[in-house]
C-alpha cells in the first residue's frame, strides 16, 4: 500500500516537473511587465506583437522553416530508396550501409557540427544555407528511414510481385503499389524530421551568422545576453506548435506506445 502511494506521488511529481517549465514560459509570455514574471502580472498579447513586428525573428523563422522543409524533402529522397534497398535487396555491406545511415540518431550533434564546419571550410561550404542544409539532411534522414523500413514487409513484397506479374514495370509498381503502402511511414518520418531540424541548435550553431540565423540559435544568442518576455513569447509559440504536431501525430499514427499488448 505504501509502495502504491509512493509510486503515485513520484509519478504526479514527475509529471508536474515535466509540465512546469512549459507552463511557466506560456505564462511569462503574457505578462504586462518589462521583465519576465511568473505568475504573470496582468495579461497581454503585446509581446507576441513585438515578436511578429521584429524583422530579425521573422527572418530567422523563415530560415528555420525553409531549412526544415528542404532538409525533410532531401531526407525523404535519400531515405526511401535506401529503405527499399535494405528491405528488398541483398548486397555486401548492407548492415554497414544501414548502420551508416542510422548512426546520426545517436552521434553527438555537436561533434558532427564541428566536423562539418572543419570539412566545409576546406571546400568552401560554410556559413551558408547550403552548409546548414547538408548537415540537417544528415541528421533527419535516419528518422524517415526508421519509420519507412518496418512497413516494407514480406506481405508487401507479395503485393509488389503480384503487380509485376500483372505486367507493371518496377517504376509503375513503386508508384501504384509500394508508395501507397509506405506513405504513413513517410508522413510520420517527415514530421519527426521536420521537428528535429526545426529545433536543432548544436549543429546549426557552427554555420549560422547574424544575417543567416535559425530560430533556436537566435533564441540561444538572446537568452545568453538579455532576457525579456518576447523571448518567452517565441518559446511559447514553439511549445504550442509542438503540442499541435504531437496531437496530429497521435491522431495519424497513434502515440499510445505504453499500452500493454495483448
Amino acid at each position, binding site marked *: 500500500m505504501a509502495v502504491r502511494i509512493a509510486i503515485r506521488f513520484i509519478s504526479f511529481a514527475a509529471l508536474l516537473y515535466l509540465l512546469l517549465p512549459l507552463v511557466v514560459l506560456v505564462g511569462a509570455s503574457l505578462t504586462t511587465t518589462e521583465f519576465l514574471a511568473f505568475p504573470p502580472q496582468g495579461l497581454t498579447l503585446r509581446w507576441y506583437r513585438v515578436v511578429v513586428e521584429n524583422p530579425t525573428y521573422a527572418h530567422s523563422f523563415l530560415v528555420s522553416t525553409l531549412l526544415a522543409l528542404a532538409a525533410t524533402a532531401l531526407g525523404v529522397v535519400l531515405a526511401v530508396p535506401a529503405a527499399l534497398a535494405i528491405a528488398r535487396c541483398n548486397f555486401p555491406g548492407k548492415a554497414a550501409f544501414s548502420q551508416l545511415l542510422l548512426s546520426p540518431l545517436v552521434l553527438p550533434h555537436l561533434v558532427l557540427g564541428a566536423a562539418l564546419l*572543419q570539412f566545409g571550410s576546406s571546400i568552401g561550404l560554410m556559413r551558408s544555407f547550403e552548409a546548414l542544409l547538408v548537415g540537417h539532411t544528415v541528421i533527419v534522414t535516419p528518422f524517415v528511414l526508421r519509420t519507412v523500413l518496418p512497413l516494407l514487409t514480406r506481405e508487401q513484397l507479395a503485393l509488389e510481385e503480384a503487380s509485376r506479374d500483372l505486367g507493371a514495370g518496377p517504376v509503375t509498381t513503386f508508384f501504384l503499389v509500394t508508395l501507397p503502402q509506405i506513405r504513413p511511414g513517410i508522413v510520420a518520418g517527415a514530421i519527426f524530421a521536420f521537428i528535429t531540424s526545426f529545433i536543432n541548435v548544436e549543429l546549426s550553431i557552427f554555420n549560422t551568422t547574424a544575417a543567416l540565423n535559425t530560430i533556436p540559435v537566435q533564441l540561444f544568442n538572446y*537568452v545568453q545576453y538579455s532576457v525579456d518576455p518576447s523571448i518567452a513569447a517565441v518559446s511559447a509559440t514553439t511549445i504550442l506548435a509542438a503540442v499541435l504536431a504531437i496531437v496530429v501525430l497521435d491522431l495519424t499514427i497513434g502515440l*499510445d506506445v505504453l499500452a500493454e499488448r495483448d
Partner: protein
Amino acid sequence: MTPSRTALLGLIGLPLAFFAAFFLIPLIVVFVASVTTTEGAGTLANYSRILFDAYHWEVTLVTFRLGVLTTAICLAIGYPLAWYLVRVVRWRAWRRICVILLVVPLFTSNIVRSFGWMVLLGRTGLVNDTLRDVGLIDRPIRFLGTETGILIGLVYILLPFIVLTIGNALAKVDRTVEQASADLGASPASTFWNVTFPLSIPGVVSGGIMVFALSVSAYVTPALLSGGRVTVLPMLVFQQYSSVFDFHYGGALAITLLVFTLVLIAAASLVSRLGAR
C-alpha cells in the same frame, strides 16, 4: 530478390554518396586533424594534452559526475513513472495525456526547455519564491551557475527517454508469467523482484546508457544553466571550433567525446539485443 547491379546502384548510390561526403569524410577529417600538427606531421600531442592536463581532468570529472547523477536520478524517477503509466493507469485518455506530456519536451528545442528552467530557478524564480513562502529557506538558493541547476535541466530533458524505454520494456512483460509466479506462491513484492524487474532490466540498462551518453554530450543545457561558471566537455569542443579555431586540439576533444559516446551506445545496443533473445 537479386536486382541488377544498376538497379541497386540507383537505389543506394545517392544516399551512400551523400553520407560519405557530408558525414563520413568530415568525421575522418576531424580524426586526421586530431592526430596531426599544423604542419601536417603525425602526432599524439593533442591527446596527451587532454590526458595530462589537470584542467581537462577537472572538466571530464564534472561531465562524468553530471552524467552519472543525471542517469541515477532519471532511473529513480523514470522507473516509477513508467510503472505508473503502464501498470497503474487504466483510463486510456489519461495515459494519452501523460504520454503527450512526456513527448512535448522532446518536440521542443533544448533552448526553450532550458530557458524555462532559467526562469524557474532564478533568484526570484518560482522555485525560490515557493521555497521561501513555505518557510524552508530564508535566502534564495543559487541554482543557476551550479551543477545542481545543470542537473535539474539535464534530468528534465532526458527523463522522457528513460520513461519511454522502460515503459516499453514493462509493456512487453508477459502478464501470465507474473500470474504463474503468484500461482507458485510468490507474493506481489516477491513476483516483482524475481520476475518483473529482471525482465525489465534490458530496458533499464539500455535507457540508462542512452541517457548517460546524451547527458555527457549535451551542450545547450549546460551552456545556458551554467552561466559560464561550470564547464563540461562539449563546451570545450565548442570553444575550440567557434572561437579558438584550433581544429587539431578541438578535433582531439571531439574524437574523445565521440568515442566516449559511441562505446556507451554500442554497449546499450548489445544489452538490448541480449535481452531481446
